[in-house]
């Protein structure tokens, strides 16, 4: 998934006509000052760190300024922050608005209902998890009629809006639904949605775009705000790769088998550090690339656990033997292999010829790799 930073989300909102505060992004204190002196951002203004983590207000990542010099100082302080592990690269400066009330609206997917759901609450401006269930309204949306006019009227009533403000909400929700579908969003969330005079203003924007729809939205491909460099390389090679804190590398195929493998390793005292899901492949080159990628993460030991279906055991064995030949001696790691399923006998034979044993039992193989990571025989 691609999580859009607030400013990117707001740029998207702007193209669909969702009302926003007057604002501008800056990447340095001087740029921040210039947004104010040039009149592009009115005073007083708010300066917000553009990070993906929540809780910015409490963490010193949102500041206020009444002069251009203050805006510069605020930007300087925020740009020096590392917020919950994320380096702050941009700040968003926006003119302050006179907030009468703060509301919550979002559209997301309800997997169990197999329907999108419109979530609204009159208690905006706080984390929605903290709001009591009784104060949250949910309306499920059938994709065929889409978000109906009566559902939008219901939302206005729940939020206590009438007259021109209710009409503003009607327009905003119709646009939010368009964004949700047209941009293939997993989530579009406005929290808070401020009542300002008779109208509404989106003070924040949280948008998550679904990866699987990338073929329709090439513009999101370049956004890589929340991936490590190795994760980025893996993504390009269509290998699911996640880095954790432990020291055992796990290469498996399929999400379920990968997760089950982690469960078993933990049971025997192992600490998985990187896991890499080959998915379905019958290309030995992909297996080789996966191994070379794994080597770059410097694991203490690697566990290869494959159950062949689409992926054939002999393909994996060939790729593995090729990769082990390419890994420099200084970066070698102990390897425990377990390959089962399609063409199992052939795969095991290829590994054996290269001096690698395959341990057929899941429990025994997991215990072996934990021992290897601890330097035990």
């Amino acid at each position, binding site marked *: 998934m691609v999580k859009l930073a607030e400013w990117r989300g707001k740029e998207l909102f702007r193209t669909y006509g969702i009302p926003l505060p007057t604002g501008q992004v800056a990447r340095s204190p001087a740029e921040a000052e210039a947004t104010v002196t040039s009149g592009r951002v009115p005073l007083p203004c708010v300066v917000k760190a553009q990070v993906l983590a929540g809780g910015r207000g409490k963490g010193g990542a949102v500041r206020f300024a009444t002069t251009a010099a203050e805006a510069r100082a605020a930007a300087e302080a925020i740009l020096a922050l590392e917020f919950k592990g994320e380096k702050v690269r941009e700040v968003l400066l926006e003119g302050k608005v006179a907030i009468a009330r703060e509301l919550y609206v979002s559209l997301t997917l309800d997997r169990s209902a*197999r329907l999108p759901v419109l979530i609204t609450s009159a208690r905006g401006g706080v984390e929605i998890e903290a709001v009591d269930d009784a104060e*949250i309204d949910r309306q499920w949306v059938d994709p065929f009629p889409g978000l109906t006019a009566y559902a939008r009227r219901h939302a206005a009533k729940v939020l206590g809006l009438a007259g021109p403000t209710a009409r503003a909400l009607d327009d905003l929700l119709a646009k939010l639904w368009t964004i949700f579908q047209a941009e293939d969003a997993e989530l579009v969330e406005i929290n808070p949605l401020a009542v300002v005079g008779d109208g509404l203003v989106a003070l924040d924007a949280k948008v998550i775009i679904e990866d699987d729809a990338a073929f329709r939205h090439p513009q999101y491909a370049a956004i890589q705000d929340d991936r490590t460099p190795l994760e980025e390389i893996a993504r390009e090679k269509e290998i699911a790769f996640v880095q954790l804190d432990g020291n055992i590398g796990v290469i498996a195929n399929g999400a379920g*088998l990968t997760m089950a493998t982690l*469960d078993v390793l933990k*049971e025997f005292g192992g600490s998985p550090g990187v896991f890499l899901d080959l998915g379905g492949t019958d290309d030995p080159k992909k297996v080789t690339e996966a191994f070379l990628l794994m080597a770059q993460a410097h694991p203490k030991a690697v566990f290869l656990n*494959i*159950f062949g279906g689409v992926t054939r055991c002999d393909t994996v064995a060939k790729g593995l033997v090729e990769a082990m030949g390419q890994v420099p001696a200084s970066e070698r790691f102990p390897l425990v292999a377990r390959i089962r399923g399609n063409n199992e006998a052939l795969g095991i034979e290829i590994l054996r010829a290269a001096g690698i044993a395959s341990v057929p039992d899941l429990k025994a193989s997991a215990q072996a790799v934990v021992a290897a990571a601890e330097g035990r025989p």
Partner: protein
Amino acid sequence: MSVLVDGGTRVVVQGITGHQGTVHTRGMKEFGTNVVAGVTPGKAGGQVEGVPVYDSVREAVRAGGANASAIFVPAPFAKDALLEAVDAGIRLCVVVTEHIPFHDMLVMYHYARAHGARIIGPNCPGIAAPGKAKVGIIPNVVFRPGRIGVISRSGTLTYEIVNGIKEMGLGQSTCIGLGGDPVVGTSFVDALPLFEADPETDVLVLVGEIGGTAEEDAAEYIHGHFSKPVVAYIAGRSAPPGKRMGHAGAIISRGRGTAETKLAALQKAGARVARFPYEIPGLVAELAAQHAHR
């Protein structure tokens, strides 16, 4: 009788001329499935693995009497392929294709439902009843006819588990891989009544994963409506938190969706819980033996 497929299943393979389509057409035929037609627009007149290829599903149905579809077409075209199958009268569609945007799947699911058609998948290994028919990609080697039903959200983990059941000396009645996508055509709750009604299934194995609340929903259903013994396993107990759909996703699943909540719910519903995949065959054998004594 088995679940959803049997000796009368006549399969059309959509995307048959692609690499996966061709490979798995061979696999389905070797399993003993009656594969009657293939479809690839623009490739009519040819043959793949001895199966005639047509331009459209309608022609495949007319010429071959197809009543089930296996869809292998690439994700950008999968929605259209499914709609075409439903419009041609196919009522069982197994969507193997992965990476279909969920917005597309929402349209596919609700369209199929409105027309009385069932989707299995997407991003799934499909369905197989040993000795009868297979629609999908589960490797043939893991099967052996028997009386254990399997429903699973996983792919390869399902193969691993089905194989374990075989190595225990038992066999399977029907195995359905539901797929792990956010929106699936057939959920645990949709599949459970089919196994309850299947006289060939004595024990059911349910393989879940963390995320979503499909397992909790299944537990609720099992509690009131499912009389057969169940062995449940949930993958991902030790997976790190995160990887969820922001705040709005969290409030939908409030207090549900973790491995702990799923296992507790299933245990409360009377299921025997396996902590690791290798514990499943033993539990299944125990319950099957008890069933035989009744």
